């Protein structure tokens, strides 16, 4: 479904005396994502996880220099196609809740998303209601303006927006931040079920434990580099199934797996 080859992202900055510098933030990296699959992208903050998502949707800031190739269903994904498909064939669940329109009630925003993905005007209201209900949000939340929603509720509104249409590729950036374990589990289950119904899901998270229960494969990012892509089943025991020392360190640092601090870091 999605093929990423040789992708790298740099930021152009001006230094002293109008010299121009490019700082590479991500890559080069290769990644593929198939229908029916949940790929978790895991890494510490600053590893470049969100940049990857924003590059797929073409929403990087203006000073970003992107090289490499993105292909969706075999066809190159250029800027025009990104703009045309965004919200239709592919949907992004952004990390920051400031991506909601502060002046529009939550239910109406989900209705917009349904309209964007091609649903008829008269169907939008019902679709929005059902999408919100799937994430445990009722009529009160639908009537609320974003400022009246808790962080976790706002995140679920954005998940409803991304899944209300028929997008085949869903990229969720930290979908469980700010959610209590029960609601986080519900969100992850829902992302899993979207993949099980034939969509491709990329889940960006720092929470390795949460990702492992729901993802097929886990891509580990560190300081802009793709360290390893391992099947979720490789994360067990002392991490013998993992190829890279960093992935093993991340696994062994979990409280349930020894809570070990890597020697180099301590």
């Amino acid at each position, binding site marked *: 479904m999605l093929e990423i080859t040789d992708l790298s992202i740099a930021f152009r900055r001006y230094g002293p005396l109008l010299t121009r510098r490019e700082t590479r933030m991500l890559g080069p990296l290769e990644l593929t994502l198939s229908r029916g699959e949940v790929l978790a992208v*895991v*890494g*510490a*903050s*600053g590893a470049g996880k969100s940049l990857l998502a924003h590059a797929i949707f073409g929403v990087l800031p203006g000073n970003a220099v992107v090289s490499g190739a993105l292909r969706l269903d075999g066809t190159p994904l250029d800027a025009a196609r990104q703009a045309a498909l965004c919200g239709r064939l592919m949907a992004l669940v952004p990390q920051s809740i400031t991506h909601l329109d502060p002046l529009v009630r939550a239910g109406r925003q989900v209705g917009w998303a349904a309209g964007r993905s091609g649903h008829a005007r008269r169907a939008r209201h019902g679709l929005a209601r059902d999408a919100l209900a799937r994430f445990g949000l009722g009529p009160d939340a639908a009537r609320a303006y974003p400022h009246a929603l808790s962080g976790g509720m706002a995140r679920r509104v954005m998940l409803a927006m991304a899944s209300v249409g028929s997008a085949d590729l869903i990229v969720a950036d930290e979908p469980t*931040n700010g959610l*209590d*374990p*029960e609601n986080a589990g519900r969100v992850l289950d829902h992302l899993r079920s979207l993949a099980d119904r034939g969509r491709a899901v990329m889940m960006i998270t*720092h929470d*390795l*434990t949460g990702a492992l229960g729901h993802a097929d494969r886990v891509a580990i990012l560190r300081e802009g580099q793709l360290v390893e892509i391992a099947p979720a089943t490789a994360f067990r025991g002392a991490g013998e199934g993992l190829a890279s020392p960093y992935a093993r*360190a*991340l*696994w062994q*640092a*979990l*409280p*349930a797996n020894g*809570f*070990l*601090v*890597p020697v180099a*870091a*301590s």
Partner: protein
Amino acid sequence: MLEARALGFAHPEGPPLFTDATLAIAPGEIVGLHGPSGIGKSTLGRLLSGHLAPGWGAVLLDGAPLRMAGFCPVQYLGQSPMHMVNPRWRVGAILSEASAPEPKTLAALGIAEGWSARYPHELSGGQLQRVAIARALAPGLRFLVADEISTMLDAITQAEIWAFLTRLAAERGIGILAISHDRALLEAVATRTLEFREIALGP
């Protein structure tokens, strides 16, 4: 000894969150506090560290009421360090808000000298959380309330921060209340874990 005696709290015109929270933490002890979200764990933590005034009951430090002026010997660390610092202050000013931090502490927390001139948004979440911890470690510190401090961090950063806090408890005799919904984390760091329902809502 830090004690909560029959503590209760209600938001204005709201029903009481809890009315009878009782617990005691000894110096050097790491006590876990577990419970579902929205039940009042953070409110209890903020009462213990003087951020909120109790509606009922009392917070006692060595048998005397908590001092409300100057540096509070009970410091609160929150989930999102961005919300615990002034975004218009540079990191250097944040670090020395209570007293100048010891170089030894900064080194142990991996805080680089170059961060001093930066603003909070120029650090990552894990880096800023370490700054918030360093700020709390003034000489008068006796107890820490660590409220979901590593939820938003990756596993390695989480392990590093808790390795530091465990050492702090052992070496300086700082008592720590670790609030989390992550049982595995509490089992790894706490000497005993309390269920919020049992200590705050009565039988």
